[in-house]
């Protein structure tokens, strides 16, 4: 009986030590990397905003409560402090989870650029969504963009990525939500 208790305590103690040492290592690594990871994420967003709304110099965050798809709205101002457009952060759900994107929209409610900041879509298929070949198709479009699977797209349509319809539709829904939010602000 006593041997049993002793061995159980010994087993528990060893697991405790292993757990403690591992957690220590992990927290050291976390401390070392967390600032850099956070600043990389912030940088990525800033860069995305600058590339989707190139005529803006400064971005001011507007008060907007997340509606599930659109999570943030930024006003883009040029050097003369005039509002030239908006950058909308949208997170529609794609094939493999949320697709985090920035949509640049000018003062007329037309798309100036789409940048996908992060996503977990299928490599080789849905992951092609952040290639200019696909995102450039949204430039100039207004409200109600539709997805076209085959054939040349009309003025209010974009071409779906071959073999990645779900991803294409998700990105489109994000863009449409962004345009709708900007319309409601004006």
């Amino acid at each position: 009986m006593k041997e049993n208790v002793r061995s159980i305590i010994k087993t528990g103690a060893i697991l405790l030590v292993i757990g403690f040492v591992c957690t220590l290592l992990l927290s050291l690594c976390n401390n070392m990397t967390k600032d850099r990871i956070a600043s990389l994420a912030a940088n990525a967003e800033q860069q995305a905003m600058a590339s989707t709304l190139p005529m803006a110099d400064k971005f001011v965050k507007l008060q907007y409560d997340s509606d599930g798809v659109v999570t943030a709205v930024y006003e883009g101002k040029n050097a003369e402090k005039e509002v030239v457009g908006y950058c909308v952060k949208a997170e529609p759900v794609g094939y493999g989870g949320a697709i985090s994107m920035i949509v640049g929209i000018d003062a007329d409610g037309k798309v100036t650029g789409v940048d996908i900041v992060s996503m977990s879509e299928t490599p080789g298929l849905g992951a092609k969504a952040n290639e200019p070949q696909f995102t450039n198709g949204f430039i100039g479009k207004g409200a109600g963009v539709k997805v076209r699977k085959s054939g040349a797209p009309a003025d209010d349509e974009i071409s779906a990525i071959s073999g990645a319809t779900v991803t294409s539709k998700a990105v489109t829904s994000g863009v449409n939500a962004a345009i709708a939010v900007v319309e409601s602000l004006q």
Partner: protein
Amino acid sequence: MRYRDIFKNGIIEENPTFVQLLGMCPTLAVTTSVSNSIGMGLSATFVLMCSNFVISLVRKVIPNKIRIAAYIVIIATFVSIIEMLLKAYLPALSQSLGMFVPLIVVNCIILARAESFAAKNSPLPSALDGISMGLGFTGALTIIGAVRELLGNGTILGFSVFGASYNPALIFILPPGAFLVLGTIIAIINIITDKKNTKEAGK
């Protein structure tokens, strides 16, 4: 002498992918491109080397009853470390590999080598075995990734090989393609090995 054998073992004789058929899940899922394959393979190699080394160091202290639990904690720690390092210093690769980095924890290769080698050998040979198996894994992934990317996308490492007019066979970057390529490669390897064995036996 022994070190050379250990090193060759993981790459050829007991290649974790083509011979032992371990770690099939990430093998099939990640090999859609050469860069993903190499990234995944090298990350797994790092974890294999570190976990084999540490587990070998503490092998006499861990009671038999809890060895699997202990191994998994140690392996998970190294995977979390490499996940943080990738996110901080190689964000593009981290994005590509996505959820497959955390999945290295349950990659059978690592637990299998911990059980069958690190638990019974000293630290330096164990680390070498980890490196060797990891490189064998990386090599296997790269071969499969090259075939799948070439046929399914017309590119290698992003460089177009067949030109814009090539209509890629999409199936190769989808799951069925993974099975087809892996099965075919193993079949070819088996044919070659059988021929070699009959030749040796016939001598």
